[in-house]
């Protein structure tokens, strides 16, 4: 033919890759079941999973972590007591809507289907019907064909991710932070490439085309189920999560959710997860190089026991590893008694006093590294602390004989929202979304859109101290039962320092004592100790505090009252407080703290150094304040008392 141009050899490799990719995409689009449904599947799942998890909030992965725990205070001032509940991960931002987590997770699942399932099944079919073998007889370099298939999977994965996230944006208010988009795209591509490598490797474990779809989904679906694809992460037992983290899908989900986390600063790459993915990529490529075959299984004659070598051995090895891991990880919490650490009877607590008993949970073998849920049950005068997982020391301070039951904290409540106070029924538990003020019960059902009625806590239940232990690991225990003594004991007028050790409050006329009211959060981490209210307003006033010496021992009482401020700014609610250790600048913003009557709390810290900075924010500018002094008092390791007293004055 005259139009044909004779070339010494065919097209360049990369143009051939593009050509293969375009053909694959064309063929995918041609088959609605294989192509279109792949794209639609995660989009279909989105409303379903959304509907199954109403009102759920999730702490997004990659949210800047501030430490080991969060305490929410709920107080009603003089009318009643104040409640304290704890939560799980303390973060700079509050929990986000589940959809913000769900959409990237389903996108990750879609990517796995488009890459892993698509390639594993497609290649196995192509291998078994001889297509791959025939390709090997053409001038097309075999890697070009694979690269074309991988490239088409990347295209499909990007489409699926865009469709899923797009559906989330359109219907469920998912936010796409533009500054994180590069991270999102890179994560999708890396994830898809890794799942492609695993998909190609998987074909060598598939002896025939018949078993391919079943086997692939037998691998993919359980992995998706334990990788938080279809439910909020807090639902998952810790051991299952640990297993998932060793598999490739969870890192991809997490990395993708991180890339859609609005509280995340740019660039938003989840380095750890991407590293884990890269590790799986290496596994996939290595397995491909070692095991991948172009020929139909029936025509392979070289191996005497191909089934044993190719399938049985790896499957058995993986199964043994997985089973061992699961059993090992799951061995702890099985018996109820293992979850319960009896810390013995507390000494009788004098009225308004405290009793302290400290246990080192490292000595309890059954407990795993991170405190994720705890339950505190007082049976008559005995305090039984149920701790599922704790890494360091738990200090329990205070309980009184009339204390019947405190709070059962579990991850579902902890991460879904902020725990609320105990209701009239001491065994009931609620949690409060500080942003909306809505109150939910343990099933996630909205009980009330206002939290106040439930914050009324009978005083006799509500006795005891807040206990926080701060060390290098951050906050390692999230509180006990209540705050302060009887509210009536706190003077409503004048500045007061109130300590929960039972001593009478002393009015210090020169001190500015700020009461922490209503709903706030205490965060302790390596950056310091902060007290946050609900996040919705900008900070407008900073109060700097300096310690007079290095922090050491236990800060036992920080007592702040509203009076000094209230005289000047009577109607202005306090926004937030921060006591960072060793750092001056805080950029966290928090929301409304309802002005309330004085109460106080106790913070136990073992911070060894750094200055203590306290910041306070109101909803409108306040005149500058100057720190006069901060007194520390409390119990140092050597046993002496350490107390913090905040002294402020207006700047001249």
């Amino acid at each position, binding site marked *: *033919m005259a139009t*044909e141009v*004779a*070339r*010494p*050899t*065919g*097209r360049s490799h990369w143009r*051939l890759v593009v*050509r293969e990719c375009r*053909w694959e995409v064309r*063929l995918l689009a*041609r*088959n609605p079941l294989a192509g279109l449904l792949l794209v639609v599947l995660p989009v279909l799942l989105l409303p379903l999973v959304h509907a199954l998890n109403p009102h759920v909030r999730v702490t997004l992965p990659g949210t800047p972590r501030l430490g080991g725990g969060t305490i929410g205070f709920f107080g009603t001032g003089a009318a009643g007591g104040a409640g304290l509940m704890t939560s799980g991960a303390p973060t700079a931002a509050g929990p986000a809507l589940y959809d913000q987590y769900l959409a990237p997770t389903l996108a990750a699942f879609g990517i796995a289907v488009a890459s892993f399932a698509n390639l594993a099944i497609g290649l196995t079919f*192509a291998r078994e*019907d*001889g*297509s*791959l*073998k*025939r*390709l*090997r*007889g*053409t*001038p*097309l*370099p075999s890697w070009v064909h694979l690269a074309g298939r991988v490239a088409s999977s990347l295209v499909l994965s990007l489409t699926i991710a865009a469709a899923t996230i797009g559906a989330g944006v359109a219907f469920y208010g998912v936010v796409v932070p533009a500054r994180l988009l590069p991270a999102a795209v890179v994560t999708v591509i890396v994830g898809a490439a890794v799942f492609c490598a695993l998909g190609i490797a998987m074909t060598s474990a598939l002896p025939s085309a018949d078993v391919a779809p079943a086997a692939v989904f037998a691998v993919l679906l359980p992995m998706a189920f334990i990788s938080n694809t279809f439910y909020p992460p807090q639902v998952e037992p810790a051991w299952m999560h640990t297993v998932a983290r060793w598999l490739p899908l969870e890192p991809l989900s997490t990395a993708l959710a991180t890339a859609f986390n609005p509280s995340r600063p740019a660039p938003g790459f989840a380095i750890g997860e991407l590293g884990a993915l890269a590790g799986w990529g290496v596994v996939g490529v290595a397995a491909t190089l070692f095991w991948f075959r172009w*020929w*139909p299984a029936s*025509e392979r*004659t*070289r191996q*005497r026991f191909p089934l044993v070598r190719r399938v049985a051995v790896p499957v058995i090895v993986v199964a043994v590893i997985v089973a061992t891991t699961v059993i090992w990880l799951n061995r702890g919490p099985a018996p109820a008694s293992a979850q319960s650490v009896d810390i013995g009877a507390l000494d009788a607590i004098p009225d308004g006093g405290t009793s302290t008993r400290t246990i080192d949970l490292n000595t309890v073998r059954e407990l795993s590294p991170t405190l994720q849920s705890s339950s505190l049950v007082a049976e008559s005068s005995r305090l039984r602390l149920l701790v599922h997982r704790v890494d360091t020391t738990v200090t329990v301070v205070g309980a009184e004989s009339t204390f019947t039951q405190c709070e059962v904290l579990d991850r579902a409540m902890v991460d879904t929202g902020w725990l609320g106070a105990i209701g009239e029924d001491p065994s009931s538990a609620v949690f409060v979304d500080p942003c909306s003020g809505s109150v939910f019960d343990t099933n996630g059902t909205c009980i009330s859109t206002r939290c106040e009625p439930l914050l009324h806590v009978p005083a006799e239940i509500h006795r005891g101290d807040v206990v926080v232990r701060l060390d290098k690991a951050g906050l390692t225990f999230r509180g006990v039962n209540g705050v302060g003594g009887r509210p009536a004991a706190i003077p409503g007028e004048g500045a007061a320092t109130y300590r929960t050790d039972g001593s009478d409050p002393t009015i210090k006329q020169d001190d500015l004592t700020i009461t922490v009211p209503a709903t706030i959060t205490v965060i302790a981490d390596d950056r310091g100790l902060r007290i946050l209210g609900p996040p919705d307003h900008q900070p407008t006033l900073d109060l700097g505090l300096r310690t007079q010496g290095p922090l050491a021992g236990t800060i036992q009482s920080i007592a702040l009252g509203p009076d000094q401020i209230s005289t000047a700014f009577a109607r202005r609610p306090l926004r937030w407080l921060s006591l960072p250790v060793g750092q001056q600048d805080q950029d966290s913003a928090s929301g409304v703290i309802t002005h309330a009557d004085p109460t106080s709390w106790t913070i136990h810290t073992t911070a060894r150094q750094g200055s203590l900075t306290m910041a306070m924010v109101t909803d409108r500018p306040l005149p500058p304040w100057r720190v006069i002094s901060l007194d520390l008092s409390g119990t140092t390791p050597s046993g002496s008392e350490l107390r913090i007293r905040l002294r402020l004055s207006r700047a001249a």
Partner: protein
Amino acid sequence: MAIVTSAVRKSYGRREVLRGVSLTVASGEVLALLGPNGAGKTTLVEILEGHRSRDSGDAKVLGFDPANGGRRFRERIGIVLQSAGLDRRLRVGETLELVGGYYPRPRPVDELLVEAGLAGLADRRVRTLSGGERRRLELALALVGDPEVVFLDEPTTGFDPAARRAAWRLVGALRARGCAVFMTTHSMEEAHHLADRVAVLVDGVVVASGPPDHLSGPDIEIRFSADSSRGLSPGLAALAVVDGSDTVLRAGDADAVMAILRELYDCVGPGGIRELRVGRRTLEDVYLRLTENEMDLTDGD
């Protein structure tokens, strides 16, 4: 020579499949490789195609060592595998277009369709093709790169007689273009019709090779069923070979045939023989005898 092999050996585990195979195929020549199942035909073809490696011996196709011929080697060969290997999602024309893109000088799709007897099927999905149509498409695919050497591993399996004739014409056209064709087949008719030379591979060894007519030899066979009650004359009995229920006599030329038949009639009288057949030995006869003997031999080892 387009294809040269000498003393090619190949074992799978302890089983030796090829035990020193030496063959040549010239450009413009069609070699048909015959042999029973398991003789090593496909292994040999796949070694020459570059699909399999050989353990020892030498193989050259177009001057390339097929084991590492690479892209330039495969640009110049065409392969029809024993098993299919077509993407069922594609259309017929697309398949040729896609694979043609791998070659530097692909032949026009329309031309190939006509040649392979697939004219008018360009828009049919591969999935919907009949077995014979699919096989023809594979044949067309082998030719899409305008190859200089074509390997056909049982290319007409599943063809109806008309399609087979068309495929044969196609192979004839290839030969006319100067293409070397290396084919395996179980069809003696096909080998006889197509091949310039036939090689019989039995148990990894070429036991015979040559033009089909040479293989079948010059003898004329007289084959009949004899009633055992009537004996042959001593002269005929010495010549006769019993083959199952048949008695076979061989003659060098037509006169000898006539002489034998006359003597036979004298011996057995009217109605004494049934199912008399006189004819040249077919390639199949030769093949069966070769393979039978060889198998007996190997069984005896």
